[in-house]
């Protein structure tokens, strides 16, 4: 069984690479072969990814979020699932390339650094943990997608404003569509993070008897929640332009990345499950 899990984990970056390549061929060259096969290939890849994570969870008897490498794999799966939903809803396929480049690198990192072990802290067996961490991972995946759509928005905005009518202009959907995708994915992220915070607070109260916890990662989560809350609700109240909202989304995700790296590199806390 371990061999099967290890094999699937190894081929996942390869599958994501092929899928990303097909989406790239469609984006840059409008290739009909790529257009025909990219969506089925994506669904096959995501199915294998899901099977791999479920098998890993069952075989090693833990919820598959025991390390950063495992979390990256789940974030990649969640991000790509949100993307598939958006592709299905809006019938826009030209943005897939940008999402999949991100997903490919997340999975590559995960497959390179993952370690298979049965030695898992007890806390990971708590059912509340699975709800809390799933909501948090979905939340951060939503923010990642929102970040990518904001980047696309800013690229297209720049090209239209400066009269560069190249591949970005001809292949990306309209600014309004990109802005909507940014908003919707940020909303998914914000809702999930809110849920993660509520469950986390409840859990913290149960274990530590306190609703307030000043763990660095929790502080990062609060700050992230405020940034995206500002984007989602402040934007409407203060009538900020879509460009400003895109900048806010990009800044929010850059903040998440830097904070997470800093927290994981320099600080230790119960959130690292040591």
């Amino acid at each position: 069984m371990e061999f099967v899990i290890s094999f699937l984990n190894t081929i996942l970056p390869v599958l994501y690479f092929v899928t990303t390549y097909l989406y790239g061929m469609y984006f840059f060259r409008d290739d009909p072969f790529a257009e025909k096969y990219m969506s089925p290939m994506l669904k096959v890849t995501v199915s294998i990814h899901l099977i791999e994570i479920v098998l890993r969870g069952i075989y090693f008897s833990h919820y598959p979020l025991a390390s950063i490498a495992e979390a990256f794999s789940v974030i990649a799966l969640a991000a790509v699932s949100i993307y598939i939903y958006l592709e299905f809803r809006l019938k826009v396929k030209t943005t897939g390339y940008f999402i999949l480049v991100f997903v490919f690198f997340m999975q590559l990192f995960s497959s390179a650094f993952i370690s298979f072990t049965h030695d898992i802290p007890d806390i990971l067996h708590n059912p509340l943990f699975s709800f809390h961490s799933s909501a948090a991972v979905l939340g951060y995946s939503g923010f990642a997608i929102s970040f990518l759509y904001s980047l696309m928005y800013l690229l297209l905005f720049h090209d239209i404003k400066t009269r560069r009518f190249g591949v970005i202009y001809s292949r990306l959907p309209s600014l309004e569509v990109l802005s909507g995708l940014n908003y919707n994915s940020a909303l998914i992220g914000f809702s999930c993070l809110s849920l993660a915070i509520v469950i986390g607070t409840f859990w913290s109260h149960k274990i530590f008897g306190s609703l307030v916890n000043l763990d660095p990662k929790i502080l990062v989560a609060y700050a992230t929640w405020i940034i995206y809350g500002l984007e989602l609700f402040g934007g409407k109240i203060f009538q900020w332009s879509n460009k400003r909202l895109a900048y806010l989304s990009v800044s929010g995700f850059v903040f998440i990345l830097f904070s997470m790296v800093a927290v994981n590199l320099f600080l230790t806390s119960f959130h690292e499950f040591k």
Partner: protein
Amino acid sequence: MEIILLGTNHRTAEVKFREQLALSSDDVPSALEEIKKIPGIQEGIIVSTCNRTEVYTVASEPGKIVSSIENMFARISGIEPEESRRYFYNARGQEAIHHLFRVTSGLDSMILGEPQILGQVKDAYRIANENNFTGIMLNRLLNHSFTVGKRVRSETALGAGAVSVAYAAVELAQKIFRDLSRRSVLLIGAGETGELTARHLREKGIGRLFIANRTHQKAENLAADLQGKAIEFSQMREIFHDVDIIVGAASAPDYLVSLADIEKAISKRGARPLFMIDIGVPRDFDPQINKLESVFLHDIDALQQIVDLNLEKRRLEIPKAEAIISEEIRNFLEWKEGLRIAPTIVSLRQKLEDIRQAELKKNRNKLSESEFEKADLISRAILNKILHMPTVQLKKFGNGHPEGLLRLDVVREIFGLEEDDE
């Protein structure tokens, strides 16, 4: 039987000559009647647009057909035959078929890949059909040419992207806004390009349309035509905050819209994007307006840049379109080749013989050796008797029978001989 083309287009003749030769759809039937009178011509069609007048005919003895049609056009247009010959081109057989397929796919059009020509050739075919001047050859050829036109448009990007300034403006609007039906537009100046832009926006389902023009009556007329609303030229600034697209087509000597005008509008409209298209020469909008974050201002040069890029993209699709045309020419020639008598008789015999052999083989184990030989003899005799009359009739079709080709085609179709040949 040969397909013959005689024609003139934007490449071979200047507009003055093309105008004289162009036939309206009301004039075409009488011209077709003239062509019918030329000895040797069995079928004919006239395609006449502002950029081309072409005659495709089917004749058993091509001989002097071309010069006869040239003389007919000389009579209609009043141009001396000697002079008109300089502007005409002609082609026969495969060359003529190739030309027609290029025409319906938009490769021969003045604006590469333009879609109207397919409809124009369809109209020409309908008129020829109504005047009983199409037969098996042109019916097949024209329908084949429509397939070519559709294939080229669906399998290549020859018709993709805006190739006119007015359409490029609409394409740009669609890169900013998702749904034009929820957007409103103000057109300043009711000139030709402005009107065309507004018309394209209307076709794309734009919401409210306001028109302001120095001569108010002209704005009223255009507004009535495009289901818009005319507003006084002096009051147009009052609705800047309320519209999403402003088209400047007035070509005024000074800027009609200043930075201050738009800043004032933005203070009322908030951060919603505003798309401004300046197609006036001299320009109508102060270029400084583009510095405002929520405004996208583009002038005619930017739109022309889009047109040039799209035309270049279309040109890159020509080899793909030519490949489709070559494939379809082969298909058509295969069909035409099949219309000969001898191959049809051979194919028909082979088809029935294959059925006989297959049935014998199926029953091989149920019959003794002698029974099998008898079955073989009897079935062969039946087959020969069945085929005797069709063979005699088919040979008659080849000897100048008036509907010979048509009947041959029916025989090939009901016995499925074409599928077998493929």
